[in-house]
């Protein structure tokens, strides 16, 4: 079955969407990512959507779901690289992605993930529970 690759880089997972996704592919990604977070114990997910030339309500919901489920699994998701035309359209469509962290590009997204993980670790005394 068609799959979007999930790469592990240290304690983070990297997902780059480069194809025009049909709905099942988006659902598969959600499922795959949650099991990868669980098996790897990843602390963060970088979701790069710079290759997407449109995001409709279904994909927007997938992005929101990934962000929410990673939070429940003790990982932070940062969505990076949204094209301006996509952002304008998504907001006009009625999706503002509340609670989803975003960064302009992958480099800034990585910085955001690193500092998010660092501040969590200092908050709980450097020990990860669970």
């Amino acid at each position, binding site marked *: 079955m068609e799959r979007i690759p999930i790469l592990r880089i240290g304690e983070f997972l990297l997902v780059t969407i480069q194809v*025009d*996704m*049909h*709905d*099942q592919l988006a659902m598969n990604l959600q499922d795959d990512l949650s099991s990868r977070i669980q098996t790897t114990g990843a602390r963060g997910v970088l979701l790069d959507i710079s290759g997407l*030339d*449109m*995001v*409709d*309500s*279904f994909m*927007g*919901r997938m992005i929101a779901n990934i962000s929410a489920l990673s939070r429940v699994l003790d990982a932070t998701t940062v969505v990076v690289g949204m*094209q*301006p*035309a*996509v952002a*304008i*359209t*998504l907001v*006009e*469509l*009625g*999706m503002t992605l509340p609670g989803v962290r975003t960064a302009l590009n992958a480099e800034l997204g990585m910085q955001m993930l690193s500092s998010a993980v660092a501040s969590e670790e200092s908050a709980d005394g450097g020990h990860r529970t669970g």
Partner: protein
Amino acid sequence: MAATGQASEVELQTEQDVVRARQAVRKLTQDLKFGLVDQTKLVTAASELARNAVIHGGGGRMEWEVLSDKSRVGVRLHFIDQGPGIPDIQLAMTDGWTSGTGLGLGLSGAKRLSNEFELDTQPGRGTRVSITRWK
């Protein structure tokens, strides 16, 4: 306003057809030199309505026509299915209302992304949604 004679269609039966519909609208608006934001808005509206036709309408088709009058060029898309129709249009047009598992932004969102929007539906007789975006 007169159609320039170009008209074509995409079958809408599967999720992959939704992708094909998006790609057809992207190509059409690129060929007509729509701006990137206008392209993206129409492609996104098409994706919502194509998915509706597949999921709620039990399949159908998208037809398109290129419109031109003296000063402007536009694209009109028709999404036609022979599904169960929409019993309560006002409810279906409400943001956040959904009969399925979606977010309920399909119809209302597609309307916001278009310059013109027409909905023709009757219970048991299918649904036809037409949207137009001018360049």
